[in-house]
């Protein structure tokens, strides 16, 4: 078990039996999650949180945005941030309202941002974030020009301080509730793709690539 990421902030205190600190399991959740919620402290001292997409290479997590974005200006370098991802696998229906819960996998990463400036790393992470949306896409799509690269800022945080919380299984209820005439169990949930829609301006005869027609999240079980 890799525990170097365990700090007072990342130790799961509420329902500690759900805490997961193994790096490989944390990475798998980060890779499967399509987007994250990114929190930071604004200049006014108040919290901000926005949805964005992320990508991971080895033990580093990257987020990006336009140079013009308020968020990117706020978190550009040396700024503490918190990133949360949530995957809901199912709804857990208990007999009592209070024992209702969800089967979920969440990861929280805390770190201090560093701006990516090395051109080789920048090119690599641009591919990675394109593949985060649809694995395989970076080999097809035109890569960014130097000008486009200049307009985009990537920041990274290490996975040195992170933890996951994984909740699975059936509701656990006190004996006196088991006798209630209420259904209990799990309703599984899954994100699935629909039918790909061609861009109205698509060049006639351009086929839909297999990573679109067979899209699924890395690690997710096929339908």
């Amino acid at each position, binding site marked *: 078990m890799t525990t170097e990421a365990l700090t007072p902030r990342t130790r799961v205190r509420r329902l500690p039996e759900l805490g997961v600190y193994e790096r490989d399991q944390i990475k798998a959740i980060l890779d499967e999650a*399509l987007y994250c919620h990114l929190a930071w*402290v604004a200049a006014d001292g108040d919290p*901000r*949180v926005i949805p964005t997409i992320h990508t991971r290479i080895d033990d580093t997590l990257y987020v990006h945005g336009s140079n013009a974005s308020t968020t990117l200006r706020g978190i550009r370098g040396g700024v503490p941030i918190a990133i949360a991802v949530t995957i809901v696998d199912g709804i857990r229906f208990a007999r009592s*309202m209070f024992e209702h819960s969800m089967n979920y996998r969440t990861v929280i990463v805390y770190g201090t941002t560093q701006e990516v400036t090395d051109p080789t790393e920048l090119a690599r992470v641009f591919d990675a974030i394109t593949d985060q949306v649809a694995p395989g896409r970076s080999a097809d799509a035109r890569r960014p020009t130097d000008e486009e690269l200049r307009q985009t800022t990537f920041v990274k945080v290490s996975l040195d301080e992170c933890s996951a919380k994984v909740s699975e299984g059936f509701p656990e209820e006190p004996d006196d509730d088991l006798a209630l005439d209420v259904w209990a169990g799990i309703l599984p949930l899954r994100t699935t793709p629909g039918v790909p829609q061609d861009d109205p301006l698509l060049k006639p005869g351009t086929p839909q690539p297999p990573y679109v027609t067979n899209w699924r999240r890395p690690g997710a079980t096929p339908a």
Partner: protein
Amino acid sequence: MSADPGERTTIHRHPERADQDPATVPRILDEALTCTVAWVDAEGRPRALPTIHARIDDTLYLHGSRAARAWKAIAGGAEICIVAMLIDELVLARTSPHHSMNYRSAVVYGHAREVTDPEELYAAARAITHHVLPGRERDAAEPRDKDWRETLIVGMPITEASAKVRAGPPKDDTSDLDLDVWAGTLPLRTVVGDPIPSPDLREGIAAPDYLDGYRRP
């Protein structure tokens, strides 16, 4: 001190995605199963916590453990920021920088108060159950007094909030339209599997009809 409310909720980046319709924020909050709450801890660092929420009119309700420091801070009136996000489609452009998503997101700013009025507490508990699946609040057993010793509910006014919405096909530069690369959108939705009864479910209790009615994007 809080920033000027107008400033925090102004969408600077892609202002065309700002959705000013007052019905949009409530609709996103209702549709999103979960949200993330951010606050600033005693050391001045950002913290984030995924949780579920429910809305009654202009109030957003959250619940958590009384024992958790996060919920003590939030119930104590710490400035918080909540984001809820729905992904409708992936947007694949011909060029990697123009990749995007069609999404609807809502951000709510402010601070919460602990709910102590019994009537409001029970209304919020029912609303949170209803949020997860409409109809369930009529079946599930209501909280007992001891439950409130462990769990608190906070309410937050949805007065300072913004919504951001992207829809439509990719937007490549005209000079890239001739590339031999597929471009378009891929709709995503959340689907339910077959309900799995608890191993300790009493015999003869059928899965309720509302399990079939689960609809979220």
